[in-house]
Protein backbone atom coordinates (compact mmCIF):
# COMPACT_ATOMS: atom_id res chain seq x y z
CA UNK A 1 0.00 0.00 0.00
CA UNK A 2 1.31 3.45 -0.83
CA UNK A 3 0.18 6.51 1.03
CA UNK A 4 0.85 9.75 -0.78
CA UNK A 5 -0.20 11.80 2.12
CA UNK A 6 3.00 13.76 2.29
CA UNK A 7 1.59 16.91 0.80
CA UNK A 8 -0.11 19.30 3.13
CA UNK A 9 -3.85 19.27 2.94
CA UNK A 10 -5.58 22.31 1.72
CA UNK A 11 -2.44 23.49 -0.04
CA UNK A 12 -3.42 24.93 -3.37
CA UNK A 13 -1.96 22.55 -5.86
CA UNK A 14 -1.23 23.00 -9.51
CA UNK A 15 -1.62 26.72 -9.54
CA UNK A 16 0.94 26.51 -12.33
CA UNK A 17 -1.28 24.15 -14.35
CA UNK A 18 -1.34 25.33 -17.96
CA UNK A 19 -3.74 23.97 -20.57
CA UNK A 20 -3.23 24.16 -24.31
CA UNK A 21 -5.37 22.99 -27.18
CA UNK A 22 -4.15 22.72 -30.77
CA UNK A 23 -7.15 22.40 -33.08
CA UNK A 24 -7.94 22.37 -36.75
CA UNK A 25 -8.56 19.72 -39.35
CA UNK A 26 -7.01 16.35 -40.06
CA UNK A 27 -3.82 16.56 -42.04
CA UNK A 28 -2.65 19.80 -40.45
CA UNK A 29 -0.30 17.83 -38.22
CA UNK A 30 -1.81 18.95 -34.94
CA UNK A 31 -1.48 15.68 -33.10
CA UNK A 32 2.18 15.60 -34.00
CA UNK A 33 2.51 19.22 -32.86
CA UNK A 34 0.93 18.25 -29.55
CA UNK A 35 3.32 15.37 -29.11
CA UNK A 36 6.29 17.60 -29.95
CA UNK A 37 5.15 20.25 -27.52
CA UNK A 38 4.61 17.74 -24.71
CA UNK A 39 7.97 16.14 -25.42
CA UNK A 40 9.74 19.48 -25.34
CA UNK A 41 8.13 20.37 -22.05
CA UNK A 42 8.52 16.97 -20.50
CA UNK A 43 11.75 15.54 -21.81
CA UNK A 44 13.47 18.84 -22.50
CA UNK A 45 12.37 21.06 -19.65
CA UNK A 46 11.69 18.31 -17.14
CA UNK A 47 8.18 19.47 -16.24
CA UNK A 48 5.13 17.27 -16.27
CA UNK A 49 3.08 17.17 -19.44
CA UNK A 50 0.09 15.13 -20.53
CA UNK A 51 -1.08 14.98 -24.09
CA UNK A 52 -4.55 13.75 -25.00
CA UNK A 53 -6.49 13.80 -28.23
CA UNK A 54 -9.82 12.93 -29.74
CA UNK A 55 -10.26 9.49 -31.23
CA UNK A 56 -13.10 7.91 -33.09
CA UNK A 57 -15.00 8.75 -36.26
CA UNK A 58 -14.43 12.39 -35.42
CA UNK A 59 -10.71 11.75 -35.68
CA UNK A 60 -10.92 9.92 -39.00
CA UNK A 61 -13.06 12.63 -40.54
CA UNK A 62 -12.33 16.32 -40.69
CA UNK A 63 -11.70 17.69 -37.24
CA UNK A 64 -8.51 17.18 -35.28
CA UNK A 65 -7.55 18.16 -31.78
CA UNK A 66 -4.62 17.73 -29.44
CA UNK A 67 -4.57 18.89 -25.84
CA UNK A 68 -1.53 19.40 -23.67
CA UNK A 69 -1.61 20.01 -19.93
CA UNK A 70 1.58 21.28 -18.33
CA UNK A 71 2.58 21.55 -14.70
CA UNK A 72 5.59 21.50 -12.41
CA UNK A 73 3.63 19.25 -10.08
CA UNK A 74 1.89 15.93 -10.52
CA UNK A 75 -0.86 16.39 -13.04
CA UNK A 76 -3.98 14.92 -11.54
CA UNK A 77 -6.67 15.42 -14.11
CA UNK A 78 -5.14 14.78 -17.51
CA UNK A 79 -7.77 16.36 -19.70
CA UNK A 80 -8.19 20.09 -20.12
CA UNK A 81 -10.71 21.90 -17.97
CA UNK A 82 -10.30 25.56 -18.98
CA UNK A 83 -7.87 26.40 -21.73
CA UNK A 84 -5.03 28.79 -21.14
CA UNK A 85 -4.20 28.78 -24.81
CA UNK A 86 -6.19 27.77 -27.85
CA UNK A 87 -4.69 27.40 -31.29
CA UNK A 88 -7.42 27.22 -33.95
CA UNK A 89 -6.44 26.56 -37.52
CA UNK A 90 -9.99 26.32 -38.90
CA UNK A 91 -13.14 28.33 -38.41
CA UNK A 92 -14.96 25.25 -37.18
CA UNK A 93 -12.33 24.60 -34.53
CA UNK A 94 -12.41 28.20 -33.41
CA UNK A 95 -16.19 28.24 -33.09
CA UNK A 96 -16.26 24.95 -31.28
CA UNK A 97 -13.52 25.43 -28.76
CA UNK A 98 -13.56 29.13 -28.01
CA UNK A 99 -16.09 28.60 -25.19
CA UNK A 100 -13.66 26.21 -23.48
CA UNK A 101 -11.20 29.03 -22.88
CA UNK A 102 -10.30 30.51 -19.55
CA UNK A 103 -10.96 34.17 -19.12
CA UNK A 104 -7.82 35.95 -20.17
CA UNK A 105 -6.60 32.90 -22.08
CA UNK A 106 -4.64 33.29 -25.28
CA UNK A 107 -6.35 32.66 -28.60
CA UNK A 108 -4.12 32.04 -31.61
CA UNK A 109 -5.65 31.68 -35.06
CA UNK A 110 -4.65 31.26 -38.67
CA UNK A 111 -5.87 34.43 -40.28
CA UNK A 112 -6.11 32.89 -43.72
CA UNK A 113 -8.58 30.20 -42.55
CA UNK A 114 -10.38 31.70 -39.57
CA UNK A 115 -12.32 34.69 -40.78
CA UNK A 116 -14.80 35.26 -37.97
CA UNK A 117 -13.01 35.61 -34.67
CA UNK A 118 -15.31 35.57 -31.62
CA UNK A 119 -13.23 38.09 -29.68
CA UNK A 120 -11.01 41.05 -30.28
CA UNK A 121 -8.24 39.79 -28.07
CA UNK A 122 -6.39 37.27 -30.13
CA UNK A 123 -3.19 36.68 -32.00
CA UNK A 124 -3.63 36.07 -35.71
CA UNK A 125 -0.97 34.75 -38.08
CA UNK A 126 -1.30 33.33 -41.59
CA UNK A 127 0.50 30.09 -40.68
CA UNK A 128 -0.41 28.11 -43.78
CA UNK A 129 0.43 30.93 -46.16
CA UNK A 130 3.71 31.63 -44.35
CA UNK A 131 4.64 27.99 -44.53
CA UNK A 132 4.00 27.84 -48.23
CA UNK A 133 5.48 31.18 -49.12
CA UNK A 134 8.27 31.74 -46.64
CA UNK A 135 9.45 28.20 -46.03
CA UNK A 136 8.24 26.66 -49.27
CA UNK A 137 6.60 23.72 -47.59
CA UNK A 138 2.92 23.87 -46.57
CA UNK A 139 3.38 20.98 -44.13
CA UNK A 140 5.37 23.07 -41.62
CA UNK A 141 2.51 25.41 -40.70
CA UNK A 142 2.18 23.42 -37.47
CA UNK A 143 5.81 24.08 -36.60
CA UNK A 144 5.46 27.81 -37.18
CA UNK A 145 2.43 27.70 -34.91
CA UNK A 146 4.42 25.84 -32.26
CA UNK A 147 7.06 28.54 -32.40
CA UNK A 148 4.45 31.22 -31.95
CA UNK A 149 2.83 29.40 -29.05
CA UNK A 150 6.16 28.95 -27.30
CA UNK A 151 6.82 32.64 -27.56
CA UNK A 152 3.34 33.63 -26.41
CA UNK A 153 2.73 31.16 -23.62
CA UNK A 154 6.22 30.89 -22.26
CA UNK A 155 5.71 27.41 -20.95
CA UNK A 156 8.46 25.79 -22.94
CA UNK A 157 12.07 26.71 -23.57
CA UNK A 158 13.01 27.37 -27.12
CA UNK A 159 15.93 25.02 -26.96
CA UNK A 160 13.81 22.10 -25.86
CA UNK A 161 11.24 22.85 -28.49
CA UNK A 162 13.84 23.02 -31.20
CA UNK A 163 15.32 19.75 -30.12
CA UNK A 164 11.90 18.09 -30.05
CA UNK A 165 11.02 19.45 -33.48
CA UNK A 166 14.24 18.29 -35.02
CA UNK A 167 13.95 14.87 -33.47
CA UNK A 168 10.64 14.36 -35.21
CA UNK A 169 11.48 16.07 -38.50
CA UNK A 170 11.68 13.69 -41.46
CA UNK A 171 15.21 13.35 -42.74
CA UNK A 172 16.14 16.17 -45.07
CA UNK A 173 13.57 18.58 -43.71
CA UNK A 174 15.50 19.56 -40.62
CA UNK A 175 16.51 22.87 -41.99
CA UNK A 176 13.07 23.86 -43.13
CA UNK A 177 11.66 22.89 -39.77
CA UNK A 178 14.20 24.93 -37.94
CA UNK A 179 13.49 27.87 -40.17
CA UNK A 180 9.78 27.44 -39.56
CA UNK A 181 10.25 27.36 -35.84
CA UNK A 182 12.38 30.46 -35.85
CA UNK A 183 9.78 32.17 -38.00
CA UNK A 184 7.16 31.26 -35.43
CA UNK A 185 9.25 32.74 -32.62
CA UNK A 186 9.80 35.86 -34.64
CA UNK A 187 6.27 36.64 -35.71
CA UNK A 188 5.00 36.09 -32.19
CA UNK A 189 7.72 38.25 -30.71
CA UNK A 190 6.74 41.02 -33.07
CA UNK A 191 3.06 40.59 -32.34
CA UNK A 192 3.70 40.70 -28.61
CA UNK A 193 5.66 43.86 -29.05
CA UNK A 194 2.82 45.41 -30.98
CA UNK A 195 0.16 44.30 -28.53
CA UNK B 1 -34.59 -1.19 -66.04
CA UNK B 2 -31.30 -1.06 -67.88
CA UNK B 3 -31.68 2.66 -68.28
CA UNK B 4 -32.27 3.13 -64.61
CA UNK B 5 -29.25 1.12 -63.69
CA UNK B 6 -27.09 2.98 -66.08
CA UNK B 7 -28.08 6.31 -64.64
CA UNK B 8 -28.09 5.38 -61.02
CA UNK B 9 -29.75 8.36 -59.40
CA UNK B 10 -33.15 6.87 -58.65
CA UNK B 11 -31.55 3.57 -57.74
CA UNK B 12 -29.49 5.42 -55.17
CA UNK B 13 -32.46 7.08 -53.64
CA UNK B 14 -34.55 3.96 -53.64
CA UNK B 15 -32.06 1.73 -51.88
CA UNK B 16 -30.20 3.99 -49.52
CA UNK B 17 -31.73 4.79 -46.14
CA UNK B 18 -34.30 7.56 -46.19
CA UNK B 19 -32.39 9.39 -43.49
CA UNK B 20 -29.25 9.09 -45.49
CA UNK B 21 -26.22 9.40 -43.36
CA UNK B 22 -24.05 10.72 -46.15
CA UNK B 23 -21.29 11.47 -46.70
CA UNK B 24 -20.57 7.98 -45.38
CA UNK B 25 -17.85 7.17 -42.82
CA UNK B 26 -15.45 5.74 -45.32
CA UNK B 27 -12.27 7.46 -46.45
CA UNK B 28 -12.36 9.34 -49.73
CA UNK B 29 -12.04 6.80 -52.52
CA UNK B 30 -12.59 3.71 -50.39
CA UNK B 31 -13.77 0.75 -52.44
CA UNK B 32 -16.53 -0.03 -49.96
CA UNK B 33 -18.73 2.64 -51.54
CA UNK B 34 -18.13 1.23 -55.01
CA UNK B 35 -19.18 -2.23 -53.85
CA UNK B 36 -22.27 -0.75 -52.26
CA UNK B 37 -23.21 0.79 -55.61
CA UNK B 38 -22.71 -2.51 -57.41
CA UNK B 39 -24.79 -4.29 -54.79
CA UNK B 40 -27.80 -2.04 -55.03
CA UNK B 41 -27.73 -2.10 -58.79
CA UNK B 42 -27.63 -5.89 -58.84
CA UNK B 43 -30.53 -6.05 -56.40
CA UNK B 44 -32.38 -3.58 -58.51
CA UNK B 45 -31.80 -5.67 -61.58
CA UNK B 46 -33.19 -8.68 -59.77
CA UNK B 47 -36.18 -6.56 -58.85
CA UNK B 48 -36.25 -7.83 -55.27
CA UNK B 49 -38.72 -6.46 -52.77
CA UNK B 50 -36.73 -4.43 -50.26
CA UNK B 51 -38.77 -5.85 -47.42
CA UNK B 52 -37.59 -9.32 -48.28
CA UNK B 53 -33.92 -8.56 -48.37
CA UNK B 54 -31.82 -8.90 -45.24
CA UNK B 55 -28.25 -7.64 -45.20
CA UNK B 56 -26.08 -8.93 -42.41
CA UNK B 57 -22.54 -7.86 -41.61
CA UNK B 58 -19.85 -8.20 -38.95
CA UNK B 59 -17.47 -5.47 -37.81
CA UNK B 60 -15.01 -3.61 -39.97
CA UNK B 61 -15.07 -0.68 -42.38
CA UNK B 62 -16.71 -2.91 -44.96
CA UNK B 63 -19.18 -4.22 -42.43
CA UNK B 64 -20.49 -0.71 -41.86
CA UNK B 65 -22.32 -0.94 -45.16
CA UNK B 66 -25.73 -2.19 -43.94
CA UNK B 67 -26.26 1.01 -41.98
CA UNK B 68 -26.70 2.85 -45.28
CA UNK B 69 -28.93 0.31 -46.97
CA UNK B 70 -32.70 0.45 -46.83
CA UNK B 71 -33.24 -3.27 -46.20
CA UNK B 72 -33.59 -5.34 -43.08
CA UNK B 73 -30.10 -4.79 -41.75
CA UNK B 74 -28.18 -6.56 -39.03
CA UNK B 75 -24.75 -5.21 -38.11
CA UNK B 76 -23.47 -7.91 -35.78
CA UNK B 77 -20.29 -8.79 -33.91
CA UNK B 78 -16.85 -9.18 -35.41
CA UNK B 79 -16.57 -12.35 -37.46
CA UNK B 80 -20.02 -13.73 -36.74
CA UNK B 81 -22.08 -12.30 -39.58
CA UNK B 82 -22.48 -15.65 -41.30
CA UNK B 83 -23.66 -17.35 -38.12
CA UNK B 84 -26.25 -14.65 -37.51
CA UNK B 85 -27.24 -14.79 -41.16
CA UNK B 86 -27.69 -18.55 -40.91
CA UNK B 87 -30.21 -17.98 -38.14
CA UNK B 88 -32.05 -15.38 -40.18
CA UNK B 89 -32.15 -17.55 -43.28
CA UNK B 90 -33.34 -20.68 -41.53
CA UNK B 91 -35.95 -18.74 -39.60
CA UNK B 92 -37.31 -17.11 -42.76
CA UNK B 93 -36.09 -18.95 -45.85
CA UNK B 94 -38.03 -16.62 -48.12
CA UNK B 95 -35.75 -13.72 -47.25
CA UNK B 96 -32.88 -13.01 -49.61
CA UNK B 97 -29.94 -12.94 -47.23
CA UNK B 98 -26.78 -11.08 -48.19
CA UNK B 99 -23.71 -10.90 -46.02
CA UNK B 100 -21.21 -8.06 -46.26
CA UNK B 101 -17.92 -8.89 -44.67
CA UNK B 102 -14.24 -8.03 -44.76
CA UNK B 103 -11.20 -10.21 -45.18
CA UNK B 104 -10.55 -9.92 -41.46
CA UNK B 105 -14.14 -10.41 -40.47
CA UNK B 106 -14.74 -13.42 -42.70
CA UNK B 107 -11.35 -15.08 -42.72
CA UNK B 108 -9.58 -14.19 -39.49
CA UNK B 109 -11.97 -14.28 -36.56
CA UNK B 110 -14.86 -15.50 -38.68
CA UNK B 111 -13.05 -18.29 -40.51
CA UNK B 112 -14.97 -21.07 -38.85
CA UNK B 113 -18.37 -19.71 -39.74
CA UNK B 114 -17.12 -19.09 -43.24
CA UNK B 115 -16.10 -22.70 -43.87
CA UNK B 116 -19.18 -24.10 -42.17
CA UNK B 117 -21.52 -21.93 -44.18
CA UNK B 118 -19.70 -23.05 -47.31
CA UNK B 119 -20.14 -26.64 -46.18
CA UNK B 120 -23.84 -26.34 -45.41
CA UNK B 121 -24.52 -24.73 -48.76
CA UNK B 122 -27.16 -22.47 -47.29
CA UNK B 123 -28.63 -19.92 -49.67
CA UNK B 124 -26.72 -16.86 -48.53
CA UNK B 125 -24.70 -14.55 -50.76
CA UNK B 126 -21.49 -13.36 -49.21
CA UNK B 127 -19.71 -10.30 -50.48
CA UNK B 128 -16.25 -10.41 -49.03
CA UNK B 129 -14.50 -7.06 -49.40
CA UNK B 130 -10.92 -8.11 -49.60
CA UNK B 131 -8.66 -5.12 -49.01
CA UNK B 132 -5.82 -7.26 -47.64
CA UNK B 133 -5.74 -5.44 -44.31
CA UNK B 134 -7.73 -4.68 -41.18
CA UNK B 135 -8.93 -1.24 -42.14
CA UNK B 136 -11.14 -0.39 -39.21
CA UNK B 137 -8.49 -0.89 -36.56
CA UNK B 138 -5.84 1.01 -38.44
CA UNK B 139 -3.92 -1.34 -40.67
CA UNK B 140 -2.86 -4.60 -39.06
CA UNK B 141 -2.09 -7.48 -41.39
CA UNK B 142 -4.92 -9.81 -42.38
CA UNK B 143 -4.80 -13.47 -43.42
CA UNK B 144 -4.87 -12.12 -46.98
CA UNK B 145 -2.04 -9.58 -46.62
CA UNK B 146 0.64 -10.60 -49.11
CA UNK B 147 3.90 -11.90 -47.74
CA UNK B 148 6.53 -9.18 -47.38
CA UNK B 149 3.94 -6.41 -47.15
CA UNK B 150 4.01 -3.93 -44.34
CA UNK B 151 1.34 -3.40 -41.74
CA UNK B 152 1.34 -1.95 -38.24
CA UNK B 153 1.72 -5.44 -36.80
CA UNK B 154 4.13 -6.46 -39.55
CA UNK B 155 6.62 -3.61 -39.20
CA UNK B 156 9.42 -5.70 -40.67
CA UNK B 157 7.37 -7.20 -43.47
CA UNK B 158 4.70 -9.87 -43.24
CA UNK B 159 6.22 -13.31 -42.70
CA UNK B 160 2.91 -15.18 -42.67
CA UNK B 161 1.34 -17.12 -45.50
CA UNK B 162 -1.98 -16.19 -47.03
CA UNK B 163 -5.33 -17.75 -47.63
CA UNK B 164 -6.45 -18.02 -51.18
CA UNK B 165 -10.11 -17.22 -50.52
CA UNK B 166 -11.22 -19.02 -53.62
CA UNK B 167 -9.36 -22.23 -52.79
CA UNK B 168 -10.50 -22.11 -49.22
CA UNK B 169 -14.15 -21.65 -50.16
CA UNK B 170 -13.98 -24.44 -52.70
CA UNK B 171 -12.16 -26.69 -50.24
CA UNK B 172 -14.93 -26.06 -47.73
CA UNK B 173 -17.68 -26.89 -50.21
CA UNK B 174 -19.09 -23.58 -51.48
CA UNK B 175 -21.19 -24.03 -54.59
CA UNK B 176 -20.53 -20.61 -56.15
CA UNK B 177 -17.19 -18.85 -55.87
CA UNK B 178 -16.39 -15.72 -57.83
CA UNK B 179 -13.90 -12.89 -57.70
CA UNK B 180 -14.37 -9.30 -58.78
CA UNK B 181 -12.66 -5.98 -58.20
CA UNK B 182 -13.85 -2.51 -57.38
CA UNK B 183 -12.38 -1.33 -60.63
CA UNK B 184 -14.42 -3.78 -62.71
CA UNK B 185 -17.75 -2.61 -61.31
CA UNK B 186 -19.99 -3.99 -63.96
CA UNK B 187 -18.48 -7.43 -63.86
CA UNK B 188 -18.88 -7.17 -60.09
CA UNK B 189 -22.54 -6.27 -60.42
CA UNK B 190 -23.11 -9.35 -62.53
CA UNK B 191 -21.17 -11.63 -60.24
CA UNK B 192 -23.24 -10.43 -57.30
CA UNK B 193 -26.43 -10.79 -59.26
CA UNK B 194 -25.60 -14.35 -60.26
CA UNK B 195 -24.53 -15.08 -56.69
CA UNK B 196 -27.90 -13.97 -55.35
CA UNK B 197 -29.67 -16.02 -57.98
CA UNK B 198 -27.67 -19.13 -57.12
CA UNK B 199 -29.61 -21.48 -54.86
CA UNK B 200 -26.87 -22.25 -52.42
CA UNK B 201 -23.99 -20.55 -50.71
CA UNK B 202 -22.16 -18.07 -52.89
CA UNK B 203 -19.01 -16.12 -52.22
CA UNK B 204 -17.97 -13.06 -54.17
CA UNK B 205 -14.43 -12.13 -53.23
CA UNK B 206 -14.01 -8.45 -54.10
CA UNK B 207 -10.49 -7.12 -54.43
CA UNK B 208 -10.74 -3.65 -52.94
CA UNK B 209 -8.50 -0.77 -51.92
CA UNK B 210 -7.58 0.43 -48.49
CA UNK B 211 -5.18 3.09 -49.68
CA UNK B 212 -5.38 4.76 -46.28
CA UNK B 213 -3.49 1.90 -44.68
CA UNK B 214 -2.51 -0.85 -47.05
CA UNK B 215 -1.76 1.52 -49.88
CA UNK B 216 0.15 3.94 -47.71
CA UNK B 217 2.24 1.34 -45.91
CA UNK B 218 3.13 -0.45 -49.10
CA UNK B 219 3.67 2.49 -51.42
CA UNK B 220 0.79 1.43 -53.61
CA UNK B 221 -0.54 4.95 -53.75
CA UNK B 222 -4.00 6.43 -53.48
CA UNK B 223 -7.37 5.08 -54.54
CA UNK B 224 -6.79 5.90 -58.19
CA UNK B 225 -3.43 4.15 -58.26
CA UNK B 226 -4.80 1.11 -56.51
CA UNK B 227 -7.74 0.88 -58.90
CA UNK B 228 -5.36 1.24 -61.82
CA UNK B 229 -3.35 -1.65 -60.46
CA UNK B 230 -6.49 -3.79 -60.42
CA UNK B 231 -7.24 -2.74 -63.97
CA UNK B 232 -3.81 -3.91 -64.99
CA UNK B 233 -3.54 -7.13 -63.07
CA UNK B 234 -6.98 -8.67 -63.12
CA UNK B 235 -7.43 -11.45 -65.63
CA UNK B 236 -10.90 -12.80 -66.38
CA UNK B 237 -11.22 -16.53 -65.94
CA UNK B 238 -12.27 -16.94 -69.57
CA UNK B 239 -8.97 -15.44 -70.66
CA UNK B 240 -7.00 -17.38 -68.06
CA UNK B 241 -8.31 -20.64 -69.43
CA UNK B 242 -6.84 -19.79 -72.80
CA UNK B 243 -3.35 -18.73 -71.82
CA UNK B 244 -0.37 -20.67 -70.50
CA UNK B 245 0.14 -20.48 -66.71
CA UNK B 246 3.39 -18.56 -66.94
CA UNK B 247 1.51 -15.66 -68.49
CA UNK B 248 -0.43 -15.41 -65.24
CA UNK B 249 2.57 -14.27 -63.29
CA UNK B 250 1.66 -11.24 -61.22
CA UNK B 251 -1.95 -11.43 -62.35
CA UNK B 252 -5.01 -12.57 -60.49
CA UNK B 253 -8.11 -14.30 -61.77
CA UNK B 254 -11.54 -12.70 -61.78
CA UNK B 255 -14.96 -13.93 -62.78
CA UNK B 256 -17.00 -16.96 -61.82
CA UNK B 257 -14.25 -19.34 -60.82
CA UNK B 258 -16.17 -22.27 -59.42
CA UNK B 259 -19.76 -23.42 -59.51
CA UNK B 260 -21.42 -26.72 -58.80
CA UNK B 261 -24.91 -27.94 -58.10
CA UNK B 262 -25.84 -29.19 -54.69
CA UNK B 263 -29.04 -29.22 -52.70
CA UNK B 264 -29.53 -26.19 -50.55
CA UNK B 265 -29.69 -26.37 -46.76
CA UNK B 266 -33.11 -24.89 -45.99
CA UNK B 267 -34.51 -26.96 -48.83
CA UNK B 268 -33.03 -30.14 -47.35
CA UNK B 269 -34.52 -29.20 -44.01
CA UNK B 270 -37.93 -28.70 -45.53
CA UNK B 271 -37.69 -32.05 -47.30
CA UNK B 272 -36.91 -33.70 -43.98
CA UNK B 273 -39.92 -32.03 -42.41
CA UNK B 274 -42.11 -33.11 -45.32
CA UNK B 275 -40.91 -36.70 -45.11
CA UNK B 276 -41.72 -36.69 -41.41
CA UNK B 277 -45.18 -35.27 -41.98
CA UNK B 278 -45.84 -37.86 -44.64
CA UNK B 279 -44.76 -40.63 -42.31
CA UNK B 280 -47.01 -39.36 -39.56
CA UNK B 281 -49.90 -39.08 -42.03
CA UNK B 282 -49.29 -42.64 -43.14
CA UNK B 283 -49.66 -43.90 -39.59
Amino acid at each position, binding site marked *: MTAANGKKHGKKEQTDRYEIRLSGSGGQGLILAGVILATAIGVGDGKNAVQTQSYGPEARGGASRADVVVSEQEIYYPKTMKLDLLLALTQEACDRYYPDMKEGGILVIDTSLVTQVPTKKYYGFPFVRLAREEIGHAMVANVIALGAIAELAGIVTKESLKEAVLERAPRGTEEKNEKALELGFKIAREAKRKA | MMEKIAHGSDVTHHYLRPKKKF*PNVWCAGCGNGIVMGALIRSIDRLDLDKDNVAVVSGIGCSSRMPVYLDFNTLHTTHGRALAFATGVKIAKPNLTVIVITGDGDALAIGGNHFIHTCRRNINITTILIDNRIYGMTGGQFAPTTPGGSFATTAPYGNYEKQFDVVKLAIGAGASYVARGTVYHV*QQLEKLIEAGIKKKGFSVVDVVSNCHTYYGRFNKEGDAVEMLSWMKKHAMPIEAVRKIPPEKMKGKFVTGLIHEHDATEFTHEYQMMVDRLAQKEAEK
Partner: protein
Amino acid sequence: MTETDPKPPVSEGNEKAARGDKASPGKYVYDGRTPPINIFLHWCKACNICIAFCPKKVLEPDREGKPTLAHPEKCTQCAICWLHCPDFAITSNYK
Protein backbone atom coordinates in the same frame (compact mmCIF):
# COMPACT_ATOMS: atom_id res chain seq x y z
CA MET C 1 2.90 -4.44 -63.73
CA THR C 2 4.59 -4.43 -67.05
CA GLU C 3 2.17 -6.74 -68.76
CA THR C 4 -0.50 -5.33 -70.95
CA ASP C 5 -3.99 -4.62 -69.84
CA PRO C 6 -5.97 -7.84 -70.15
CA LYS C 7 -9.00 -5.82 -71.21
CA PRO C 8 -11.69 -7.26 -69.02
CA PRO C 9 -14.84 -7.74 -71.02
CA VAL C 10 -16.89 -5.35 -68.94
CA SER C 11 -16.49 -2.07 -67.11
CA GLU C 12 -14.88 -0.26 -69.96
CA GLY C 13 -16.31 1.46 -72.95
CA ASN C 14 -19.98 2.15 -73.27
CA GLU C 15 -21.86 0.24 -70.67
CA LYS C 16 -24.65 -0.84 -72.93
CA ALA C 17 -22.23 -2.04 -75.50
CA ALA C 18 -20.45 -4.00 -72.82
CA ARG C 19 -23.75 -5.62 -71.97
CA GLY C 20 -24.26 -6.44 -75.58
CA ASP C 21 -27.66 -4.78 -75.67
CA LYS C 22 -29.19 -5.29 -79.06
CA ALA C 23 -30.92 -1.94 -79.43
CA SER C 24 -28.16 0.61 -79.63
CA PRO C 25 -29.69 3.92 -78.59
CA GLY C 26 -27.29 5.97 -80.61
CA LYS C 27 -24.50 8.19 -79.46
CA TYR C 28 -25.03 10.78 -76.72
CA VAL C 29 -24.74 14.34 -77.87
CA TYR C 30 -24.39 17.24 -75.42
CA ASP C 31 -27.15 19.78 -75.94
CA GLY C 32 -25.02 22.64 -74.69
CA ARG C 33 -27.30 23.34 -71.72
CA THR C 34 -28.16 20.34 -69.58
CA PRO C 35 -24.95 19.06 -68.00
CA PRO C 36 -24.39 15.41 -68.91
CA ILE C 37 -23.90 14.51 -65.27
CA ASN C 38 -24.78 16.02 -61.89
CA ILE C 39 -22.23 16.25 -59.15
CA PHE C 40 -23.45 16.51 -55.54
CA LEU C 41 -20.54 18.33 -54.09
CA HIS C 42 -21.74 17.82 -50.55
CA TRP C 43 -21.31 14.05 -50.83
CA CYS C 44 -18.12 14.23 -52.87
CA LYS C 45 -14.91 13.61 -50.96
CA ALA C 46 -12.51 14.58 -53.72
CA CYS C 47 -11.11 11.12 -54.18
CA ASN C 48 -10.22 11.84 -57.79
CA ILE C 49 -11.54 8.53 -59.11
CA CYS C 50 -14.06 10.02 -61.53
CA ILE C 51 -11.55 12.50 -62.84
CA ALA C 52 -8.80 9.96 -63.30
CA PHE C 53 -10.87 7.30 -64.99
CA CYS C 54 -13.08 9.40 -67.26
CA PRO C 55 -11.89 8.17 -70.64
CA LYS C 56 -12.76 11.49 -72.31
CA LYS C 57 -11.17 13.77 -69.71
CA VAL C 58 -14.48 15.51 -69.21
CA LEU C 59 -13.73 16.30 -65.58
CA GLU C 60 -11.20 18.50 -63.93
CA PRO C 61 -10.56 19.10 -60.23
CA ASP C 62 -11.54 22.31 -58.52
CA ARG C 63 -9.44 23.91 -55.75
CA GLU C 64 -10.65 21.31 -53.28
CA GLY C 65 -10.04 18.45 -55.71
CA LYS C 66 -13.71 17.89 -56.47
CA PRO C 67 -14.71 17.33 -60.11
CA THR C 68 -15.98 20.11 -62.33
CA LEU C 69 -17.42 19.63 -65.79
CA ALA C 70 -14.58 21.08 -67.77
CA HIS C 71 -15.56 19.53 -71.10
CA PRO C 72 -19.20 18.50 -70.99
CA GLU C 73 -19.28 18.21 -74.75
CA LYS C 74 -16.81 15.33 -74.68
CA CYS C 75 -18.94 13.16 -72.42
CA THR C 76 -20.15 9.90 -73.98
CA GLN C 77 -22.28 8.82 -71.01
CA CYS C 78 -19.98 5.86 -70.66
CA ALA C 79 -21.02 5.63 -66.95
CA ILE C 80 -17.53 5.05 -65.65
CA CYS C 81 -17.58 8.07 -63.38
CA TRP C 82 -20.83 7.40 -61.60
CA LEU C 83 -20.42 3.66 -61.40
CA HIS C 84 -17.09 4.16 -59.68
CA CYS C 85 -17.97 7.04 -57.41
CA PRO C 86 -17.77 5.54 -53.91
CA ASP C 87 -19.92 8.30 -52.53
CA PHE C 88 -22.92 8.31 -54.84
CA ALA C 89 -22.03 11.89 -55.70
CA ILE C 90 -22.57 11.59 -59.46
CA THR C 91 -25.76 10.90 -61.37
CA SER C 92 -26.46 11.16 -65.05
CA ASN C 93 -28.82 13.57 -66.73
CA TYR C 94 -29.14 11.49 -69.85
CA LYS C 95 -32.72 10.25 -69.95
